């Protein structure tokens, strides 16, 4: 599929299966079975995993494209966890994709392997309670294990949720036997897992921000006060400009991160992209709510599906400070004359 075909196919799927009403229902029920089935049938949940491992093929750019569409529709499913992050981790280790719902054990999890048995606690696992399998990186080993929703022998789970009522569950392993395991190749480290997770969040955020930009522009043209559309007032235009500036910033940053990852690097660009997306989330949600006024605060109007996700996602996969500290520390260590080349060449010259 070309970029445009993929984008329009994805948009079509989410438009049908991730309507605001569906998102609302999934927030209550903790799951969106029809949406997930559609993603599995289309193969979108299995991008970018190679076909010989049971995936749907595709590039990192394809996976990010899908996540942008998912973010724009606030899709209540672990798409990033299944594909860009979890699928990548399995693929790197040469492990085949399992059937059913899968998610990732986040890099912050405290886990250990004893032979083939998994011990420890994984906090904030996205849709953990629905996962039939979980993927994780434990002491340099890529692990595929039964999830809490496995037919038998899965780990214990307790439900949690982020600000957007997306399930973020605590999963406890007390010697659960793993399904498959393989040593992670050299290029896969805990830091790389952080980066992939952050790229996934930044892509979702880019999608959500672009949807907010369109929604707010539309509303400001329709809503009339003082006898004219509110978008004609300079003070409101300033909000629209902020939102569109930040949409451009995050879109370009995610593009840049993808370009670098496809060249086999990307630490610098992903750190930048996540930082910029986090900052944009603050600016965009504030400006969009201010433009919408009271109606934007209601459950009935869909702005909150997007803004609550941005508030949640900005702190997930490492918040602004984690990435700023990491990047800034590396830049300062390289000294003043390496600073501008790093801005120009990114991860080509700095790790």
């Amino acid at each position, binding site marked *: 599929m070309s970029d445009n075909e993929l984008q329009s196919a994805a948009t079509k799927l989410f438009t049908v299966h991730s309507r605001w009403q569906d998102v609302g229902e999934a927030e209550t029920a903790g799951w969106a079975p029809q949406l997930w089935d559609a993603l599995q049938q289309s193969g979108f949940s299995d991008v970018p995993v190679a076909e010989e491992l049971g995936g749907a093929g595709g590039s990192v750019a394809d996976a990010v494209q899908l996540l942008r569409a998912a973010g724009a529709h606030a899709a209540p499913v672990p798409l990033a966890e299944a594909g860009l992050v979890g699928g990548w981790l399995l693929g790197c280790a040469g492990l085949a994709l399992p059937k059913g719902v899968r998610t990732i054990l986040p890099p912050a999890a405290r886990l250990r392997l004893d032979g083939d048995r998994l011990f420890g606690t994984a906090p904030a696992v996205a849709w953990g309670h629905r996962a039939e399998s979980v993927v994780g990186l434990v002491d340099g080993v890529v692990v595929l294990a039964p999830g809490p929703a496995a037919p038998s022998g899965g780990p214990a789970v307790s439900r949690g949720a982020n600000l957007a009522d997306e399930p973020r569950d605590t999963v406890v392993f007390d010697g659960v036997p793993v399904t498959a395991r393989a040593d992670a190749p050299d290029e896969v480290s805990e830091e790389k897992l952080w980066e992939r997770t952050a790229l996934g969040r930044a892509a979702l955020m880019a999608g959500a921000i672009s949807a907010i930009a369109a929604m707010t*522009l539309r509303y400001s043209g329709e809503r009339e006060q003082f006898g004219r559309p509110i978008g004609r007032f*300079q003070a409101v235009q300033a909000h*629209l400009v902020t939102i569109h*500036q930040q949409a451009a910033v995050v879109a*370009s940053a995610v593009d840049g991160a993808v370009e670098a990852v496809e060249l086999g690097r990307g630490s610098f660009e992903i750190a930048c992209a996540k930082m910029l997306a986090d900052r944009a989330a603050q600016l965009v949600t504030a400006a969009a709510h201010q433009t919408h006024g009271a109606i934007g605060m209601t459950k009935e109007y869909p702005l909150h599906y997007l803004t609550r996700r941005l508030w949640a996602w900005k702190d997930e996969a490492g918040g602004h400070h984690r990435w700023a500290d990491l990047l*800034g520390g590396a*830049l300062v260590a390289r000294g003043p004359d390496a600073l*501008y080349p*790093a801005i*120009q060449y990114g991860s080509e010259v700095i790790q």
Partner: protein
Amino acid sequence: MLTSPATLTAPELELRQQVGAFLAETLPWGTFEPGLGMGAEVNPEFSAAVAERGWVGMAVPARYGGRDATAVDRFVVVEELLRWGAPVGHHWVADRQIAPVLVRYGTEEQKRWLLPRICRGELCFCIGMSEPDAGSDLASVRTRGVRDGDHWRVSGVKVWTSNAMRADFMIALCRTGEGARHQGLSRFLIDMRSPGVTVTPIPFLNGSTDHFAEVVLDGVPVPDEMVIGDIGQGWTQNANELAFERSGPDRWISTFLLVQEFVREWPDLAATPAGSRLVGELAAQYWVLRRLSLAVARAIDAGDTPAAEAALIKEMGTRFEQDVVSALRELLDRELVCSVPPAQTPSLFERLLRRAVLDSPSFTIRGGTNEVLRGVAAKGLS
């Protein structure tokens, strides 16, 4: 929007290497006083040396002395010059603004006469837009061009004109006819040595008296050959240029050297958690502003006129230039007091910082205030 690739091709990277090598040789670091972006020093010899390499007016067609280069090539050259704090003041306006205007609207005669001299770095231009009663509301200019026999006579007052005291020519926006606000405006090239031109410096708040000026035009004779484009089309022409003018590296890079020299002169503070965090945050913003700015240059090369996008970038980039200054001051949290005359302070960082604090309010004013830019950008959204 702005999805064009933000990476450089091999020839573009080669060009960057050449500019870097030229600067290291012609203007070694530590042997000159670096400036803050486009507000850097004026140095005709340096401009001639840059031009010698073919990097002034480089997008001009070769038959008029240019190099047939792209907007991205020019981006590459300008980025290297500005991040070095090079003294670009003499040729800056000619290169960024006048050369593209002449290529697009100039007569064959004007092109043959002026473009080769611009490309040799000889000519310095000033821009006669603002007037005492026409700042952001540019369409209300009152300077008039009146027909007098076989030529025009221009009268009025231009103010806050950068480099008027050393410019060879001014490009002046004048009213030549009646009609709705945006009609009846025309642009003239005015030879600054013409009778009736009086330049009076306007001291800048930083103490400089050789930058800003008032220019009184008292019946200045202007021949038809000095009219730019068609009489009455000045406003439309002006609006079309803004994509070139508004989105270049000069709109976000002006205070970069502060960050670089902060890391050099305050390594311990830069290595604290607060220092590193700030450097990381600023690097991310430089990285993405540069990407967006480069994407506009690519779009221009593809034949687009991304004026609204350029306005979005300038509005954001110039605010960022100011934020860099305040963030560094906040981190340093110390008085800016020199024990010697400020110009003799041995610390380059301190000299740059003093200048940046005093100059930075102008970043969001020059070339269109941010308030006006937001209006331009908002119109482009719908």
